[in-house]
């Protein structure tokens, strides 16, 4: 499937990637090639096959309900771009 710049802009927006029209045009070609390429899957004989999400047919292991994590806020926030009063700061969110 061939994608146009409008579609590239739409998925860039969903992906939260800044993209101007020139960049979108550049990506459109490569993305079209990739979507064409993966269309080979259409020829696969997958009638009645269960999707495989995971290489091992195992079940989720359950962790005991216990607190194991100490408070290391200072360590974690030392690498944050913007914090104040223990809060991470972002531009004002309008609700």
């Amino acid at each position, binding site marked *: 499937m061939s994608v146009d710049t409008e579609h590239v802009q739409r998925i860039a927006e969903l992906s*939260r990637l*800044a993209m101007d029209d020139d960049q979108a045009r550049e990506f459109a070609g490569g993305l079209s090639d990739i979507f064409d390429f993966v269309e080979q899957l259409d020829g696969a004989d997958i009638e009645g096959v269960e*999707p*495989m999400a995971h290489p091992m047919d195992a079940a989720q292991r359950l962790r005991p309900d216990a607190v194991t994590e100490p408070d290391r806020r200072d360590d974690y926030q030392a690498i944050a*771009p*913007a914090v104040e009063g223990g809060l991470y700061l972002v531009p004002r969110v309008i609700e």
Partner: protein
Amino acid sequence: MTQETLSDWVRKLRAREISSRELTRLYLDRIERLDADLNSFVTVTAESALEQADAADARLAKGEEAPLLGVPVAQKDIFCTRGVRTACGSRMLDPFVSPYDATVVERMHAAGAVMLGKTNMDEFAMGSSNETSFYGPVRNPWDTARVPGGSSGGSAAAVGARLAPGATGTDTGGSIRQPAAFCGITGLKPTYGRVSRYGMIAFASSLDQGGPMAASAEDCGHMLNAMAGFDERDSTSLERPAEDFTAALDADLTGLRIGLPQEFFGEGLDDGIRAALDEAIRVLRERGAEIREVSLPNSHLSVPAYYVVAPAEASSNLSRFDGVRYGYRCEDPQDLLDLYTRSRGEGFGAEVKRRIMVGTHVLSAGYYDAYYLKAQKVRRVIADDFRRVFADVDLLLGPTTPELPFELGAKSADPVKMYLSDIYTIAANLAGLPAMSLPAGEVQGLPVGLQLIGNYFDEARMIGVAHQFQQETDWHARVPSAFA
């Protein structure tokens, strides 16, 4: 001194023929002297390496035994290292100094390994040439005009040039095996779940697997002994008893059934590589192995299935990089949307953005069934092919790559062409099988990689067979002349 392998160093350290400090110093010197041509390290932790070496020497003096006690190794910069920048080849994580260690790093530290530094890689492990790194491309020690492969290209080049006796890698679609083949070293991707993914920055969670890269199969066995094991912090970690991956080094190849998937020897395979493999097969047959042709009829679907599944998982895994809690944040964001789109737009390189967009597209409303669900079904069909084949053979053998290391820039403009570099390696990731690449020849002065694919949990046998092959050949012991 470039002749010694990691296994040799393990023996010499135990015999107190060399101290860990001397050995660490030796490799740090080589990095300092030689890495400018390769760019294989992004961070060298000389000071802490020497401290760790002294600690290891103290443990050695007490007669302690641990799998890698005193051995210097390099960590791929995808593994989180506490107090050391963990950038994953990306501008996005250039400011990220991890507050915790990956389980692999923790385990190797406990096993006595000394960390020399962090190795360069394709950005977020997305690439087959190491050209997508924010820190610039890595070059192949056999020919610096050529790529070392990717995404673990820094680790492969460092080991190939003997700047480290061993290094960790990660393999999502061939990222250990393809660079190992390109750099003339041995690299192993274990069974999915053998090596903890905790603290290993995720690319495609259901495919990613960490593993060892070193000169020889025996080296890989020693490293895997330290790296592998159940981890309660990883839900996909295998709950299996500890295993000695060097236990089958003395394997007798008599009667070993080796299958050659005919699909791996068809059109598109370089003639020189084909000839090198023929010779390798002859060696194994001479040692008593039974060689037979087998078929993996759906293997042609593995690359397209992978390029749906891997980007889908990646697009979601990389959503956490948003400039809020750590990592790159754009200057002066106007509003929340601007913060997100510019931090991500400026923080990620083109290939990463491309794959995020592919993943977003294949998961979005109206496309999910046509792409993602179909790819998941194809994935099972591919895994079933292997299951069928492993009823008849013990191991599969084929080329690691369809061609020799290519020149920098040769494929950068054509993503699909680049993706096809991994045509023989991807199927093992989709199925979760262990697989390794080992040096098996030289063509035009460039190394050739031979790939073994084993059944689930069969790493020890695979290492044993590779080791026996390496007793008969010396490809793995060769070092590019510029680095000898």
